[in-house]
Structures are given as C-alpha cells and as structure tokens.
C-alpha cells in the first residue's frame, strides 16, 4: 500500500491529495499540463517537501509532518525518470548507468542496455547524445538502481515510434518481474491503456478520480479527454479457449458473450482487458453471410447521443451487463431507423487486448 | 646552530649586505640579514624572532624593545648617523632654490618628504622645517612617502620637483641631484641605534664588535653614513 496524504502550496497551485495505491502494478497519473503531476511525484521522491501530511511507501513512512519524519530522497529507494533526462554530463553513459547500481549484476545490465538499444553508446558522454538517446539512458539508469518504487515523468515522450513500441512490452513486463509499484505520468491515452492498472486523474492539484483503470476510464471526469473519434469502452474479460486451427483466442465476457481476438499465449481464465473504440463498431440490421469481421454481436440499443453538430452520433449498445459504443453518421442512424430498445448487430472490426494476469486487483 | 641573523632597517640594505659579506669572509661565520621597516622588525623581535642583532632607523623602536626587555639594554649604542638633504629631480629646471624659498617655488607642486607621522626621516624633516618656521606654509604641500625610498622615487620620477631625503639615499640617486644638505642643528641627531637581542647567540657579540671596526666603518662611509664615534670626535 502506498499512501499519499499531503498538502503543498506552489505559487497559485494548491496540491492536495489523499490517495492509496496498490503496492504493485502501474498507476498512471494523468492530467492537463500544469495540473501538478511533476510536482506530485517530486513530493513523493522527496525533492519537494510537503507543507503537511504523510507519505508511506509499503511499511516505510517516508514523510510525516506530525512525527517530523522527512526521509531524504536517497533513503526512499525511489527510482525517478525525469521529464528531462538529467544525465550527469561529466560521466560516460556506462558510468551514468551504474551510478545507482549497487549489485552490479552483469546479466541485468546486459538485458537492460540491449533492450534500450544503448549498448553502442556506453563509452560516449551525454552531451553528444540525441534527445531520445538521453532518455533511454535515463530509463536504464533508474531501472538499474533497483528501486522499490519507480516514478516516471513522461518517459516515452521523446522516443520514436519503433523504440516506443519496443520499450512498451518491457515496461509491461516490469511489474511482473520486479514487484514494485510504478507511478507513470503520461499524456498518451494509448500508453496509459496499454500499461496502467490504476489511473489517477489530477486537475489543478486535486485528485478528481482514482481507481482501477476501467472504472476511471468510463467515469464522467474522463470525458473531456476522449475526443469523439476516440470514444471507446474498456471491458474486462477472461480467456476462454484457443481456436483449434487458427491463431485466434476466444474471450469470455461476463454473460456468455464471447469475442475472438488474435491469439493470446496465456492459460484459460487469464483475465484480459479489451478496449473497443466506438469507431471500430459498425451496425447492421442483418449480418452478412460471409464477412471478414469475426465478431458480430446481437445487442440492444440503449441510447443514442448526437454530437454537438448533430452530424454524427454515438450509439450505446447493451447485451446483459456488457456495454459498447458505436459511432456512426446521423444519416446511417436515420436509415437504420435506430431507436432505444431495438435489437441490432454490432460488427466489431478491431480491439486492443492486454493480458492482465499480473493484476491482482482486477 | 642557525646562522647569525641581523634585523636591520631597510634603508641599510646594501651597506649592511656588504658588511655582512666582509665579516663572513673574515670569520667564516654565516650571517644573514632581514630588511624591513624598523617597526615591523621591532614587533617581530618582541614576539620572539630569531634575531641576534637589531639595527633600527631611530630610537623610538629601540626604546620600545628595551621597554619590552627584548634587547640587551647595555648593548644599545648609536652605530651610524645620517643627515638630510634637499634634492631636486632631474626633470626640474636648474633655477636656484633654498629651503627658505621653497614655499614660493612650489606653485601647484608638492614637496616629497617621508611621512612625518611615523617615518623617522619624516619626523626629522618636520623638526627641521619647524625650526625654519616653514612647516605651516608647507604643511599642505607635502607628498608623504611611506619610507625614504618611495619618497626618493617620487622625486626621481619627477612627480615632485623637490624632496627631502637622507643624504645616503641622495648620494646614490642617479635621477636627482642634491641641492643642499640640511644643517644637523635643525633637528635631533639622526642616529641608527644597534643592540644585541636578548636571546642572542654568543657568537653575535663578535659581529656586533665587527660592525664598529674600521673595516665596517669604511663600507658604511662609502654609502654616505657617518660613524657615530666620528661625530662625537668631531664635536670634541
């Protein structure tokens, strides 16, 4: 359990939090620019001192204004990947990497440097690295210090797409391998969705939503962040069975509904998370006999939300406790004569799936 | 043991160097000298400096040490005497001047003298000017040097047309000329007292005596000093 119960006035911004985070998994910290994300993790790391309150990491009370506890940063065992890389300019990359590395496990060193693609840089000085190279070294340096908690401030923002894609799975693995909580600041909903188990929404220094990702995702606080075109639902499911011939996996939703997805290498019953974008869901009155779309569900129209302009609409569909959204044009809605309660077939063209076997809470 | 050490007022530098060399040659004993302001040397001796012989530029600092019992009182004797000279810079024209006509000749220029507040040469100069009733009219036209050398330098560099310095310095100056010697009757006798420092090494006595020898006297005289005995002899 990680408890952050603090107050801090920064200029006109008053940071005030009272949150508990699980001691495992990735928690995303999400909010506007200037909402206090960096300040909050600085408070946790001990780089800023709260005006009052307490911070507990596991059994370790690192700050308590009443008991006058205020552990210095180096005693908090927190890894920090800064928004700017902050590599030590006078040390070679290899020395930077080993700065906080006490155990000096050569295998771990090799794995991490290879993964981050920084092996060829080891003998260089930071000044000659490009922005992305610097950030990769900074991530490696924090990982190698074997922290008991990791704070990451937009660590992927300066990476290019292939590197991002390459790093992602490693970050995903991170929590299963090392049993430490990660607090992850990001502006990218995609990143958050792929990585995070918990989501904290911060606005003007206050936590306005906090909880398991799927929950916060569908909360009203999240709406401003989801552009109409990005409207989506997040569903929790369990692995049901594998297709005998094709590399496909069936997922069981709550109420006997089942969806096919590209093969997931996991055992039955493994919990997974699905994200289905409204724009990937099309509606037909009668499904085609032969279609490339694998997932066609019979659902009931629950409500229709017209966009501000009235040109498009978001159809909320229901099947038992499962809800999905479909985004279609008004023209199509009229043609289909959509009305609340109507039964219709939802064709789901795509979805993103993340195995959630590591997440105890979900 | 450490070599014999003489603490001497800095105006004695080259004369004393030569005397020490002569003594070294004769007695095969090493002598070293430390030259600085008489004041600094006196304070150092008072605080236990490793000196055997002290030669001051006037009696004030010798008296200070004798009060402190830092010198062997019985050994205090005048060693040398000096006199003052009015000099003119080589940059200055050759119109005739005397001490008395100085105030009218200075115009906007200054007269260089050693600081009358504390430098011995300055104190004697002040006495002489006072005796001549010139002090009041010259008081505000004085460029006060921190010692005789820097006073001489002001004249040599033409900063001031005239200056009053020791005769010993004036004689050796290449860039100034002596206009007149100032009569010794106008000020207290300018004497350089010598003393054995309280904890002097036994061999120091020999050097002390050598400083009064004719051999040393010849050297001192060559640099323009007058041996104290001579003055007394003259008076007699």
């Amino acid at each position, binding site marked *: 359990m990680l408890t952050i119960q603090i107050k801090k006035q920064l200029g006109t911004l008053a940071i005030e939090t009272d949150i508990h985070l699980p001691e495992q998994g990735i928690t995303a910290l999400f909010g506007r620019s200037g909402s206090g994300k960096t300040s909050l993790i600085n408070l946790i790391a001990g780089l800023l001192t709260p005006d009052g309150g307490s911070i507990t990491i596991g059994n370790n009370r690192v700050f308590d204004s009443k008991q006058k506890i205020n552990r210095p940063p*180096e005693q908090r065992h927190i890894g920090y990947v800064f928004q700017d890389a902050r590599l*030590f*300019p*006078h040390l070679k990359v290899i020395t930077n990497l080993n*700065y906080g590395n006490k155990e000096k496990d050569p295998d771990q060193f090799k794995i991490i440097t290879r993964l981050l693609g920084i092996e060829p840089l080891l003998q260089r000085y930071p*000044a*000659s690295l490009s922005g992305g190279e610097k950030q990769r070294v900074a991530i490696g*340096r924090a990982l190698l210090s074997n922290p008991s908690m990791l704070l990451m401030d937009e660590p992927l923002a300066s990476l290019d797409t292939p590197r991002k894609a390459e790093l992602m799975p490693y970050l995903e693995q991170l929590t299963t391998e090392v049993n430490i909580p990660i607090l992850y600041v990001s502006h990218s909903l995609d990143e958050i969705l792929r990585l995070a188990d918990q989501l904290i929404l911060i606005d003007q220094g206050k936590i306005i939503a906090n909880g398991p990702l799927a929950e916060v995702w569908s909360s009203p606080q999240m709406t401003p962040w989801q552009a109409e075109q990005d409207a989506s639902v997040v569903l929790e499911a369990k692995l049901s069975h594998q297709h005998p011939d094709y590399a496909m996996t069936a997922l069981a939703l709550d109420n006997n509904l089942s969806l096919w997805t590209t093969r997931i290498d996991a055992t039955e019953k493994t919990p997974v998370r699905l994200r289905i974008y409204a724009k990937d869901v099309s509606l037909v009155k009668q499904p085609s006999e032969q279609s490339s779309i694998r997932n066609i569900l019979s659902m009931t129209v629950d409500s229709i939300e017209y966009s501000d302009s009235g040109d498009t609409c978001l159809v909320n569909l229901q099947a038992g406790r499962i809800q999905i959204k479909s985004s279609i044009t008004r023209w199509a809605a009229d043609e289909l004569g959509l009305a609340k309660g109507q039964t219709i077939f939802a064709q789901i063209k795509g979805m993103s799936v993340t195995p959630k076997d590591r997440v105890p809470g979900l | 043991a450490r070599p014999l050490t003489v603490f001497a007022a800095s105006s004695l530098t080259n004369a004393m160097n030569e005397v020490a060399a002569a003594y070294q040659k004769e007695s095969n004993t090493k002598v070293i000298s*430390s030259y600085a302001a008489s004041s600094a040397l006196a304070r150092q001796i008072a605080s236990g400096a490793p000196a055997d012989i002290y030669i001051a530029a006037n009696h004030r600092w010798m008296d200070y040490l004798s009060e402190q019992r830092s010198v062997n009182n019985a050994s205090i004797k005048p060693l040398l005497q000096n006199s003052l000279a009015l000099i003119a810079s080589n940059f200055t024209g050759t119109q005739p001047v005397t001490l008395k006509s100085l105030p009218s000749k200075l115009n906007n220029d200054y007269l260089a003298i050693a600081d009358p507040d504390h430098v011995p040469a300055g104190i004697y100069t002040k006495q002489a000017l006072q005796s001549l009733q010139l002090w009041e009219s010259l008081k505000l036209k004085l460029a006060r040097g921190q010692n005789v050398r820097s006073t001489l330098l002001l004249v040599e560099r033409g900063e001031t047309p005239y200056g009053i310095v020791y005769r010993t310095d004036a004689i050796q100056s290449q860039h100034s000329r002596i206009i007149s010697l100032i009569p010794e009757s106008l000020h207290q006798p300018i004497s350089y007292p010598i003393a054995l420092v309280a904890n002097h090494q036994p061999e120091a006595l020999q050097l002390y005596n050598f400083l009064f020898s004719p051999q040393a006297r010849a050297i001192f005289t060559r640099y323009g000093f007058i041996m104290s005995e001579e003055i007394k002899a003259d008076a007699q």
Partner: protein
Amino acid sequence: MLSEYEISALLLSLKVSGIAVLFSLPPGILLAWVLARYQFPGKSLLDSLIHLPLVLPPVVIGYLLLVSMGKQGIIGSALNQWFGWSFSFSWRGAALAAAIVAFPLLVKAIRLSLENIDIKYEQAARTLGANPLKVFFTISLPLTTPGILAGTVLAFARCIGEFGATITFVSNIPGETRTLPLAMFSFIETPGAEAEAARLCIIAIILALTSLLLADWLSKRVQQRFSH
C-alpha cells in the same frame, strides 16, 4: 641564467604558494559548498569573515598574524604547545600568510561555479541512492572542476604576489621567508638596483603565467570531455 639568489627566491615562492593553495583547497571547497547550498543563521557573518583578508591591507593582516599566531600569540603558543607546530619566521608562516590572503579568492571562485551548477543533477543523484556526501564527491565536485581550477590559479597568483602580510608576519629572512616579492623589495630599497628588481618581477610574471596557461589547458581538457 638565473642567479643563485633568484633561484632560491623562486623555489621558495613556488613552495610557499603551492603549499598555501594545496592546504586551502579542502577547506575552501567545503566552505564554498556550504555557502552555495545551505541556508543557516550566521551565514552572512561567515561569508563576511571569509572576505575579511581582502578588505584589510596585507600589512595589517601580517600584524594580526604576528599577534595571534606568533610564538607569544594566543593561538600560536597553543599550537606550539599542543602540536609542536610553529609558524614563526619560517616558510610555513609565509605559506599561512599567503593562504589567508588568497583564501577569499579561492572560495569565491569555487562558490560561483557551484552556484551555477543546476541542482537538478544533484537531485537526480539523490534519487539514485547517493547521500549528500557521495553527491558532493561524485557530482558537485567534478562538475565544479573548471571553477576549482580557476580559483586555484587565482589564489596561486595572489600567493605569488603576496608581500605585506609575509614581511610583517615572518620577516624577510633569506632562504626561509624571502620569497620573490620580498627579494624584489630588497632591491627596490637599494638605490640603483632597478634592473635586479625587474628581473625578479619578470620571473614572478612567468611563474604566474605558466600556472595560468596550465590551468587553462586543464580546464579545456575537462570541458572537452563533457562535450564529446
């Protein structure tokens, strides 16, 4: 080329200035760091104290040294009794005088450098588990190298030129305390010895110049490393 007299003064100046700077460096760096990084009551006072030797004429400093650190001085006699140390009329005293006169320059240069190092590197080091001491030695100190070098040269040059405090504190004893400036003084006091004084003057200049160029070169090497 150089007379024995000149060589002796030169070597002595080197020894005195070198030792003075060497021994000033650790306390100088420490004080600079404390002044650059921490706030505490009495900080301004400490800062002023460090600047004192700059404000006072060297002769006064020499006088104060004589009074306090001389054989009969309060501190001097204690040091002599307890540790058997004596600064009186030895090159060690000359080094002490030089060190005190040059100390404000050393501290100021290093402090200026330290103040310009972004604390973000120190913060990063602490999150990597380094305590303030390790941070100081592995991050702050190396990043300050150019400033330390600059301060060292400045202080060394000042030591080479030190005269008033030295002659007042430890007198002008050949081979022991007669450094280049004191030797120069002896010639200046001698009518007609301007040429000899000028020679010593040039020796002092060359000495300082060499140390300056050396520091420049070192500083460049250090900074090149940071940017390759």
